[in-house]
């Protein structure tokens, strides 16, 4: 079989101008659902903007923006049931917010406070995974737990194109395929792994085709089309819930931002390339569709923006007003019961911290 015969399908509902270019899925016939998705994309962008601003002014740690890729995690999360488990990498703020992680928790986390991972909402969702791709096996384990207990739940795991080069990716897809576990793997295929372009990451013409070797379905979706992403993930989830096993979905998008606030993408890619991708970004696309369908106007747009702005500002203020944890916190959850040697170190640290805090 030559690569051209692999027959990897690619799904798109809205073209880059927001015109219908594919079959409209059922959920997208409900204007309220579309507005909910649009608000989630806007909220993610407002959060990203604020987070970058806070980092630039020394009030947040290094931050990974999701600019331009918001539809990937929002679409995937929107396809999930609340009882499913989300297993993100570190660029899935939109999906986390959809799942019920709060803006304050996200600010706390990126501000360097582990309490931001103690989600009050989705208690079983995994925290961000910083070592690239090492969370894919966790998704397999979570999905295996569901299968062993006979539950109709699934794990949805997101990661970047760079992660598909890792052994964890190959191992996880392989195991998930053998055990037919309800795990959906979604690639945020944004074209860049810091400075390494997609072309230098893999000689494969699509990343979705890597599913074929694991014996599981693989497909592409327009990652800037939130309707298509949600539809494709919903379909994969329905399949998984029937016991038919995992899927790999490559959501093709573009990283309009730097890798993180510690990165300067102008060192390795042309502004012209970035500019070329701006017209296809996900927010404008859905907004154009909403306008053409008669669901949207300037007043509604301003209301959503104002609503998201005030929610983000309120959360940022709450985060900034939250004092750091006491020194004991770094010791107290290392083990269920801190052993004696750790208690001794806690005593030392507590005394020394009096000069620090």
């Amino acid at each position, binding site marked *: 079989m030559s690569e051209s015969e692999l027959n990897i399908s690619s799904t798109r509902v809205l073209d880059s101008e927001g015109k219908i270019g594919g079959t409209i899925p059922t959920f997208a016939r409900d204007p309220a659902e579309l507005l909910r998705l649009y608000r989630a994309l806007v909220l993610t962008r407002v959060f990203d903007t604020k987070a970058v601003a806070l980092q630039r002014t020394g009030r947040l740690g290094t931050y990974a923006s999701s600019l331009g890729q918001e539809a990937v995690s929002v679409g995937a999360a929107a396809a999930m049931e609340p009882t499913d488990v989300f297993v993100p990498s570190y660029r899935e703020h939109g999906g986390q917010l959809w799942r019920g992680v709060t803006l304050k928790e996200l600010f706390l986390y990126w501000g360097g406070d582990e309490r931001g991972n103690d989600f009050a909402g989705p208690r079983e969702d995994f925290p961000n995974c910083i070592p690239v791709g090492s969370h894919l096996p966790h998704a397999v384990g979570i999905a295996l737990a569901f299968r062993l207990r006979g539950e109709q739940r699934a794990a949805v795991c997101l990661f970047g194109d760079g992660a598909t080069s890792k052994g964890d990716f190959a191992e996880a897809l392989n195991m998930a395929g053998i055990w037919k576990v309800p795990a959906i793997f979604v690639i945020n295929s944004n074209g860049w792994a810091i400075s390494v372009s997609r072309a230098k990451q893999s000689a494969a013409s699509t990343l979705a085709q890597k599913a074929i070797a694991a014996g599981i379905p693989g497909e592409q979706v327009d990652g800037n089309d939130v309707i298509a992403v949600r539809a494709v993930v919903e379909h994969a989830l329905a399949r998984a819930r029937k016991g038919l096993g995992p899927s790999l979905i490559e959501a093709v998008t573009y990283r309009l931002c730097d890798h993180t606030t510690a990165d300067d993408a102008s060192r390795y890619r042309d502004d012209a390339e970035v500019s070329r991708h701006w017209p296809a970004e996900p927010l404008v696309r859905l907004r154009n569709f909403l306008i053409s369908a008669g669901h949207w106007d300037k007043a509604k747009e301003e209301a959503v923006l104002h609503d998201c702005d005030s929610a983000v500002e309120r959360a940022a203020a709450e985060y900034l007003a939250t004092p750091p944890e006491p020194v004991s916190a770094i010791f107290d959850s290392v083990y*269920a019961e801190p052993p004696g040697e750790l208690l001794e170190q806690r005593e030392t640290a507590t005394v020394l911290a009096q000069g620090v805090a």
Partner: protein
Amino acid sequence: MSELSLVQAVNAALKRAMDEDSRVLILGEDVGIDGGVFRATDGLLKTFGSQRVLDTPLAEASIAGVSIGLAAQGFRPVAEIQFAGFAYTCIDQIINHASRLRSRTRGRLTCSMVLRSPAGGGIKAVEHHSESPEAMFAHIPGIKVAIPSSPSRAYGLLLSAIRDPDPVVFLEPTRLYRAVREEVADDAVGVPLGRCFMLRPGRDLTILGWGAMIREVLEAADRLAAEKIEAEVIDVATLKPLDSATILGSVARTGRLVIVHEAPLTCGYGAEIAARVCSRAITSLLAPIERVTGYDTMMPYLRSEAYYMPNVAGILAAARRVMAYA
């Protein structure tokens, strides 16, 4: 009560743990139909079925990683890595995830899992099959590390490891798997983690070790007794958390310490014990601490293995040096 070898005691503990707690699962390479290459999981597939004893594909990192996902979901996975020399690809999962899931979610998600692996040399095995990586694991915050030295302690420590709410690396001395048999009561009674075991009292010096080396340590103590030198023998058993009190108490009585381990000298776990004794009991010491360990070489392939392994003669020489020190 029945006489069990160490590997049979491991098998009995696994079976007992699976009997008492339906959350306990076994996974690893060849653990199912083959019962494990050392038969540690023999019969478990037949008894508990393929939903609880899972043969995995050959992917060590993911055996650890899948266990983390299962543990976060409330299962109690016991993962087998076929030989400790193949556990190195798991270290990413152990360091970056298993050890810190509790801490980085402030207790929301936890990781009660056991990573079992045969470890150590002296079995004339293929390359990479005779490693002693305990110090690497003991260096990781959030992990517990236990190494049994007898069938009964293997049974009890493994039960405690499986019942523990945190991740435990459990290294089984391959050389002892079938070397000794003893009466082991399959009574579901765990041996507590985090405690050293005094195997023999003695007033003149303390010799401590763990795992397979305990055999040589006990033999050396016997020989010393014939020379009217009474060695106190301690099986460290759990390297992390370390029961410093038992060791310090012994050194306070004897004033002399010999540490024995099979792993290389430099940054071996003996260095940690020596440092603790020096910082807390230096005034008790009547002689410099001696370490009898493997060398800072590769673990040799089988024809040269005996050159490397610490032996009774080496322990006796160290014991005589600490006794002779004025």
